[in-house]
Each structure stands twice: as structure tokens, then as C-alpha cells.
């Protein structure tokens, strides 16, 4: 940080003002992202998805987002990625602490299918309300039909693959 400030000061003396010259991005963290560390007590629960590192995608596990935007020449890849991120945030917030799996987003033509596993913690009535609420709001925002296809498990330990 000290070096960067120095650099900015040095550059600031030479270039016209109101210009940003240093561009920073987050670190790639290739060896760390998507992996979990072993805890001393070996009691950290992992789902199947978490238990397999990112390089096992397509070999042991598959993607959480299914769409054709990232094929060569596919349309609107960035929009799809941002929308998927938004859907994930919205669904996790709406179904607060209910999802025990990752949120799977599958797109077919203009239909968005959101799949996942939830706990049987709320009554069926609330669940129906939340399904309708999520579908209605998301389809209004994204301007395409949204379907929620959920599976329930009695306990959150049912989806735990291993403890590390």
C-alpha cells in the first residue's frame, strides 16, 4: 500500500489531475479458491459440491450454472453471469438459511430453472408462498419465466458428504 501511495504521488506531479492511472483487481488465488482447509477437530461439514475442488468440474461434479452464453460466439455472457449472481443473492436472502445445497441455475431458451435442496424447516404453506414470491419477482425483474424446482431434506446433515 505504501508503494502504491508513493507511486500515485510521483505520477500526480507529472500528469494532469483527475486521471486514475493505477488499476487494481482482486487476486486470482488459484490454489486457494473453492477449496477448504482441514480443521483441527475434523468437524467441518462439506457437501459433495464443496468436497470436490474446482478442477474436478466436469469430472466428478458439474457446473452450477447451465447456459449457452459461454459457448464460442454465444450471446450476452456478461449479462447472464450478472443475472445468475443476482438470482443467487436473491434466493439465498429470500430462503434465509434454508438452502443446504448450492443454487443451480439452468437456462433453456428464455426459461430459467432454479434448482436446489432446502431443509424441511418451514411449513408447506410458507414454502408455497416463498416459491410463488421468488418466481413472481424474479420473472418480473429478469423478464422471462422462472421456475423453482426444489427438493427437501429432513435434516441438513442429509446432504453432508464428509467432515474435514
Amino acid at each position: 500500500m505504501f508503494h502504491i501511495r508513493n507511486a500515485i504521488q510521483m505520477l500526480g506531479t507529472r500528469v494532469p489531475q483527475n486521471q486514475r492511472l493505477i488499476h487494481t483487481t482482486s487476486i486470482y488465488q488459484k490454489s486457494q479458491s473453492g477449496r477448504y482447509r482441514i480443521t483441527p477437530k475434523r468437524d467441518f461439514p462439506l457437501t459433495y459440491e464443496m468436497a470436490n475442488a474446482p478442477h474436478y468440474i466436469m469430472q466428478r461434479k458439474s457446473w452450477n450454472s447451465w447456459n449457452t452464453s459461454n459457448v464460442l460466439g454465444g450471446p450476452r455472457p456478461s449479462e447472464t453471469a450478472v443475472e445468475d449472481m443476482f438470482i443467487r443473492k436473491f434466493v439465498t436472502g429470500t430462503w434465509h438459511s434454508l438452502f443446504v445445497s448450492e443454487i443451480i441455475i439452468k437456462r433453456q431458451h428464455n426459461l430459467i430453472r432454479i434448482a436446489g435442496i432446502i431443509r424441511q424447516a418451514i411449513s408447506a404453506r410458507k414454502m408455497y408462498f416463498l416459491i410463488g414470491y421468488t418466481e413472481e419477482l424474479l420473472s418480473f425483474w429478469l423478464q422471462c419465466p422462472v421456475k423453482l424446482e426444489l427438493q427437501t431434506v429432513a435434516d441438513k446433515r442429509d446432504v453432508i458428504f464428509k467432515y474435514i
Partner: protein
Amino acid sequence: MSAITRLRGKTLNTIKNSTALISNRSFSEETEFRVLNLRTVKSQAPVRRKINKPDVLPPRSNQMPVDQDWGSVWPGQRTFHPATVPLPVRQGYTEKNAPPPSKFGNAELMKIPNFLHLTPPVIKKQCEALKQFCTPWPKGLETDEKCNKHFEIEVASSNYCYSSPSIRDPLARIVTLQIKLSSLPLDDHARDKFRRIVGDRYNEENDIVTIVADRCPLRQQNYDYAMYLLTAVFHESLRFEEWEKTKSEIDMEFYDWNVSKSKSSIESIFGKPAEEIVKADVYSKAVGALMNEGENEYTLAKYGESVREMLQLPAL
């Protein structure tokens, strides 16, 4: 009359009462959604929430008969659901000889696309339903040759299906028009001119002219433009312009002996028209081969032979 009114009033009252009763009951039983209570009274005891597990039915697949109609159980595309699919499927990688994770609570099975809605009996049923909309294949178009004969112009364009809310794709506007040059009624001059105008859009190997139109934003416009181009080129090639008479020997696309310098020279040597000269046809063919195919051992030898024959010189 009054009796009827009284009766109606009585019924109305009972309905009102029962509605109130139901609504009261539902309000009193409505403990699921909490009420925001701003005025906290001391006497109000903190209510402990009882954790009661909601009643969950056993998996539906336990009660499924063996001979059920699967097409009505799984009518359309859907994410895998373990309670609906009566198959003991498993998916996942495990170490140490453990069995793969079962279908319950398995997110991997929910990710992959399934074809449970497209079982063979369902496809058969759907084909049967679609049959009423089909028309018989037109007579006289049984083979590809017949199709090509009756429909010389072939127009191709692509549709793109993407998993995105937009059905538009800029590549869908491109229209490719193909036609066999021999199917156009053109004479020698017109064919030559046509080929000169279309340039490298003509493929000599299969005699096909390809016109690709992609400059307009819509497919229909591009199709119209391609058809316009074909019409314009066709009529232009039929026209004979004044300046085309100045075409000289070097402008020819191939060597034509009949209008060549070679013909006039042998006519002047023999002093009679080329048709009357003995062996002139052999000579003309040899010269044509030499000029059109290029100089190689064979054409040169043929040329030498034909010249000797025509001039009645002894062979080597």
C-alpha cells in the same frame, strides 16, 4: 313472501356466523406469521417457540404401480426429483469402495439434464398426435435429382437457439443462395459474361454459383437482395454492350483457334480457307491444347506431329 324473506335472512345469518367462526378460528390458529408487538407488557411471558417438524409425506415413488403411465407422471422437462422417479439411481465419486451417494439429497442429479420426459412410448405418442398435421410428400419429387431439376435455386439460412431471453441472433440474417450455372438459359457470350461478373463466387468444380447476402439487418431483406442480385446479373449478362466488340485475343478466357492469329497465318501460307486444308483440324486441336493446357511434353510433341502432317513433312 314474508316467510321467504325471513328464511333468507336466517340463512344469511347462519352463513355470516359460520364465516366469522371460520375466520376467527383461522386467526386464532394463525401463529405461523408473528405479529409485531411494539407495546411490550411486563406480564407478557416470553413465548417459547415450539419446534414442531412439519408433516412430510413419504416419497411418492413408494406408492407407484408398476404399470403406470409414466408420460403423465413426468410430462415435461423438469429437474430430477428423487421422490417422483422410482429408479434407484446414484451419482457421485467416492473413495474407499464406498457406494456413490444416493438419489436423496443429491445435487449432482439435479444439475444434469435428464430425458425422463422423452421415453420411447411418449415420443411415439407425440408422433401419433403430430401425424394429423402432416401432408404427404409431393409427387414427382421423390429423388434429389428431381428436386434439383424442379427447384434450381437453393436458399439457406440458419436459426440459432440459445438459452437466453433474446431469440435474436445477428448471424441469422445471412442468406446463402446457390444455383447451378447450367440451369440458367445462357448462351456462350452470356455465360462468359455471367462468370466474369460473379468472379470467384462461381465454383468450377461443381458448376455452382453462390451468392451470400449479409448486408441488411433482416433475413427477408437479405433474401430479397440476393434474388435481386441474381436477376440483375442474369439480365446484365444477356445484354451485349457496344464496348464488348473491342474484346481482343488477350481478353479471351480460353484460346479459340477459330479467331486466332494461327488460323489466319496458315490460311495465308496455303492460300485457301482453313476448312479446305488437309489435316488442319488436327493442327487446330493441337494448337488449342498447347495454348489452353500449357506447354508440356505431350502437347509439344502433338503440336510437332500435327505441323509435320499438315506441311506433309516426313516424321522424325
